[in-house]
C-alpha cells in the first residue's frame, strides 16, 4: 500500500508529458521538411520515413490539422515532427 504523502496536490506542479516543442523547419515543395533547427542545432533531413495526417476537432474554435513526419536526420537520429496547419508552426513531438 502506498503511504499517503498527507499533502494537497499542487496543480501547478503538474507537468505535461510529451509536450510538443517548437522548432524551425526549412521545407521544399508542399511543406516537405528538408532541414530542422532544434534549439541552435541544425540537422539536414536525409529521409522522410513516413508521413501521416490528423484532422480533428473541427467543431472547436481551434481545430486540429497536423501533418506528421517521421524523419531520419543527418546525425542518424530518427525524429518525429509535425506541421500545425492552423498556427503554421512546426513542432517536435514523439508519436505513438
Amino acid at each position, binding site marked *: 500500500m502506498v503511504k499517503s504523502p498527507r499533502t494537497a496536490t499542487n496543480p501547478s506542479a503538474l507537468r505535461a508529458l510529451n509536450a510538443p516543442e517548437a522548432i524551425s523547419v526549412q521545407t521544399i515543395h508542399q511543406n516537405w521538411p528538408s532541414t530542422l533547427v532544434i534549439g541552435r542545432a541544425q540537422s539536414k533531413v536525409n529521409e522522410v*520515413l*513516413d*508521413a*501521416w*495526417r*490528423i*484532422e*480533428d476537432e*473541427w*467543431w472547436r*474554435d481551434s481545430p486540429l490539422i497536423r*501533418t*506528421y513526419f517521421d524523419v531520419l536526420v543527418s546525425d542518424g537520429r530518427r525524429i518525429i515532427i509535425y506541421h500545425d496547419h492552423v498556427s503554421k508552426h512546426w513542432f517536435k513531438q514523439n*508519436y505513438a
Partner: protein
Amino acid sequence: MPEYVELHCHSNFSFQEGASTIEQLVVRASDLGYPALALTDHDNLSAAMRFSRKARRRGLHPITGAEVTLAIDGEPTHITLLVETQTGYKNLCNLLSLSRLESDRRYPTVRPDLLARHAEGLILLSGCARGPISRALEQGRLNVAEDLARQYLDWFGENNFFLELQQNLVYGDSARIKQLSRLGQTIGVPVVATNNAHYHIKDRHRLQDCLVSIQVRKTLEQSHRDRRANAEFYLKSPDQMARLFREIPDSIHNTLEIAGRCNFDITTQLTYKFPRYAVPDGYDQLAYLNYLCRDAAQRKYGRITPKVESRLREEMRRIEKHDLSGLLLIYHEIITVGREVQIDLGLVDPETPLEEAPPGRGRGSSVAILVGYLLGISHIDPLKYDLGLDRFLPEELVVAPDIDLDFPRNIREELIKRIHERYGWDHAALTGAFPTYKIRGAIRDIGMVLGLPQAQLSKLSIQTEHASAQQVRDEMLAMPDFRDKVDSPIWRDLVELSKQLDGFPRGISQHPSGMLLSSTPLSDQVPVHQSAMDGRYITQWDKHSAEDAKFVKIDILALGALSQMQDALRLIEQRTGESIDLSRIDFEDHAVYQAMHRGDTVGIFQIESAAQMQTIIRIKPKNLVDMAHEVAAVRPGVGANDGVSEYIRRRKRRQVEPGWPIPYEHISEEPALERTLGMILFQDQFNELAIQVAGFTPTEAEEFRRAYSRPDENEDIASYWWPKFRDGAHSHGVNGQTAARIFKKFNGQYMFPEAHAYAFGVTAYQMAWLKYHYPLEFFVGLFNEQPMGFYNIETLKEDAKRHGVLILKPDANLSREQCLAESNALRLGLLNVAGISRESAKAIVAERDQRGSYRSIEDLMERNNLLKESLENLAGSGALDSLSNTPRRAIQWEVGLRSRPKRTVKGPSHQAQRQVSLPLPVEHDMVPLVEPSAWEQMIEEYRTLGLHPSSHLMAYIRDRLSEVTTTDRLWELPHGTVVQIAGLVIRRQRPLAKTYFITLEDEFGHAPVAVRPEVYKRYRTLLREPILKLKGVVTHREGTMNVVVHSVETIDVFARVTPKAKNWN
C-alpha cells in the same frame, strides 16, 4: 496523364458510414475523369441499381460490389468483393442474404466457408485496415496473414484475388502497405490501390465524423477513437493517387485492369422471371386464366356479351404479349389465400361466394382490367365506367405492372405470413424501404453529436414545420429563441451539416405493402433477409430499384376503412339479421349525396379531410363518376396549378351553360382532357396529353411521367424531356409558346390513376351510405379501427352525437374488449382505456363471461391480475362507476388501498409466489371524498380515454366567451362579417407552405380557419396552443365558409390534458 479507377467506395447507403449521395459520387468521379467506379457499400446492395443507372447515364462504367463483413475467429473483419460476372453477382447476393439470415440481421457477418462456396465470378480485394490479412499483419502474425492469403488465392483463383493497398495518410498505412507488398511478392498475389472513399469531396469529412458518432451514439468529443483520423477518405484524382503510389505503379494500373474485367451489368443481366402458377393438367397459364375469367363472366353477367367478349380478347392478347398470365393467376391465388384467412378468422360464411364478400379489393391502375374484376382482384366493373387499358396494360411495357390490393388490417397481417409460407422467402419477399433524414431527425442526431443542449434541441425540433432538413436555418430565424444562434459557433455547424444530411437514408426498413415475387430465387437477384418483424422477409431494394429491375410487385395494403366496413356490416347483420351486399346498394341515393353536399363527411374514407369537405361542397357529386372526380381532385398534382378551383369553375360553367366550349391551349389536347373539362385530374391523362400533343409513344409517355415522379431524375426534365416535347408538339402544329404553356401542366406531384379514383370513389360512397343509413354501426366500426383518418376520437365522438349516436363510458360489467352497439348507443370498449392491454381486456371479459358480473371493486381485483395503474385508469374513465356507490375519487382511493406490489419471478420460491393473498379489510381506511367536478372528470377522461363522453370542453368555458360566435352560427353570417371565434384546435395544415389552415371545434361543430402567411408569421407560436380565440372575417365562396384570421389569442383553461390536434405538413 495517369488513369485510375476507385474500386472501394461507400455511399450514404453504407448507413452512418458514407457521407455522399450516389449522385454526388457519380458526378465527382466523372469530373475527375474516372473511366469507371465501384460502389462497395457495407454489407448491402441497396444502391446498386440506382448507382448503375446513374453512372451509365454519365458515361461512367459502374462496378457492382460490396464491403463484406467476414468473421475470422469470431471477430468481424472487412473484405472487398467486386462482381465480375453474372454468377458472381448471384454469389454476392446470396452471401449478403446469408450474412443476415445466419447471424443477427443487425450485425451481418459471413462465415469463411460460405465465402469459399460463393467465390466464383467475384474478385476479392483483401480489404481495409480492418481486413483479415491487414489485421494479422498488424498483430505481427505473419504466418496467419500468409495462410489467409494462400487460402483466398485457392478459393478465388489466380488473378481474382488482390492485396488491397490504402494510403489515407493515417499512422500505420505506410507500414501496412510495405508488409502487404512484401507478402504479395512472396506468394505471387498482385496488389491494387484503393482509397476507401467515404465521401466525394474532402469537406464532407465533417459529416462523416458526425455519422460515425451517430452510429456509436456518442458526441464528437467522445468518439475520437471511433472516427477516422483525418479527411483523406475522399475520391482523389488519378494524379493524387499516382503520387501516393508512385513507388508501386502496378497498384494503380491494376485498378484499370480489374475495372476492365467487371462487365456485369445489373440493369440488363438479371435472371429474374415472372412468377408462374401451377395450373391443372391440360392447361397452360394463359388458357387457364382465360377459363377462369370466362367462368366468372358467366356468373357476373349471366352470359358473355359481345362487349365482354371483345374486351376479354383484347386483354388476353396484351397479357399474352407481355407474358403476364402467370402473374395474374398468382394474384388470383393471393385473393384465394385471403379468402382462406377470412374464413379462418370467422369473418365470412364459407358458403358465401367470393364475389359477394371478397377479402380485399383492388386499388391503383389495375382496377381498369376486366380480368381483375372477374378474378376478384378488383371490385370495379371497368366496362361500366369505360376505363381504358393503356395505363395498366399498354402495348409496350416500361416496367412490370403492379397490382395493389387493400385488405382489412387483420386479414392482411395473416395473409403476408401465409404468402411467405406458401412461396418461401426466396420467392416472395417484401420490398425494402429507406426512411430518410428529415428536419427533426437531423436536428436531433447532428445536435446530439455536436453536444448541443438536449432541451434546446427538443424545443427546436418540436417547433419546426418544414420537413426538409435544408430549412433548419429558416426555422431558427423564425423562432425568437433561436434567431440569435443561427450564426454562432456549433449552431452554425448544425445548420450546415443538417443541410448536407437532408434526405440521407437512415437504414433498411420494410415497405408498408410491396411484395416481390419471382419464379427464380429472389436471392439470386437481390439480397433477401429477415425484417424487424417476426416472420417477414425483405429485399435490399426499394420499390424504385425493383421497378428498374422489372420485378413484379404486389402491394398488399392494410386499409382501415375496409376493417371499419367489415365491422359495420357484421354488426348490422347481428342487429337486423340483414346481410348487406355493398356492391348492390343504390349508388345514386339522393339523401346520401345531400349529406355529402353539406360537408357531413367526418369519418368517411377519402372525403373527410378539411380540403375534401370544402371541395365536395363545391363539386356536389351526384353519381359514382362525380365521386371519382371528387376523390381525384384533391390531390397535390391537381392542385399544383390551381387545378382544383379551375376544374370546379369549369364544371359550374358547364352546368349553367351546357354548350359552353372547353378552353384548350391547343385542340390536340381534346382527346386527353375532354372528359375532365380540359384539366388533368388523373395520372393517365398525363401520358395521354404527351401522346396527343407531342406524339410521344406510350412507352415514352410513361418514362416521361416517371421522370417527374422520381426526384433523382428531375434534372432530365429540362434537359431532355422539354426539348423532346417541344419538338414533338411542333411537328403536330403546336407552336413553341403554346407547347410551353401545355408543358407547364405537367408536374411531379401525386395524382390518382383514373381506375384508382373509381375504386376509391366507390368505397367512399359505400362508407357515406353506411354513415347515413347505419350511423351506429358506422361509428362503432370507426371507433374500433382508431387510430385512422383525420380526426381524434373526441372529434369523432362529437360527430357521432350529431348523428344521434350516444357515446357511453366504458363499464367493467358491460363493455367488451372493443366498442359495441348497445341499443342506439355506442358503448366504449375496455381497450379504449389507456394502459389496458389486449390481454387484460380479454381476461376481464372472459372472467365475467365465465363466472358472472363483477360485484365490487374488490371482486374485480380479486378475479383479475391487473396493475394498479390500469385499475386507476379504469376508475378515471368511469369504467368502475357501476361497481361502487362512491364517487370516482373514492373508487381510485379504494383501488390504491387494495393494490399490493406485484409479485415478481424473483420471489423467494415458486410456491410462495402462488400463494393467494388474503383480502384485507379497507373500509376503516376509506375517507369521505367529494365527487369530482364535471371539469375534473373531463380532464381525467381525456387522460384515460382521449374523449369526454358526456360533453365538450368548450361548453364548460362558454360563460367566459360572451363575445364569441359559436360555430353553428357562422354559416348564417354574411360575407365580410368580423367575428371572434373560439375552440379546440383539431387540425393544422400548411399545404406547400402557403396559407395555414386550422379547424376549430366547439360544442356545436367545426369552424374552418385560414391564416395568411403574414398573420401566421406574427402568431406562429400562439397557433400551436390547444385552445384558441381568434378574430377574423367570415368569407363565403361557392357554398363554402372560412374565417380569415387577423389576430390570435390563447385561452388558458389550466387543462393539463386536452385532445391532440392532428397536424399535417
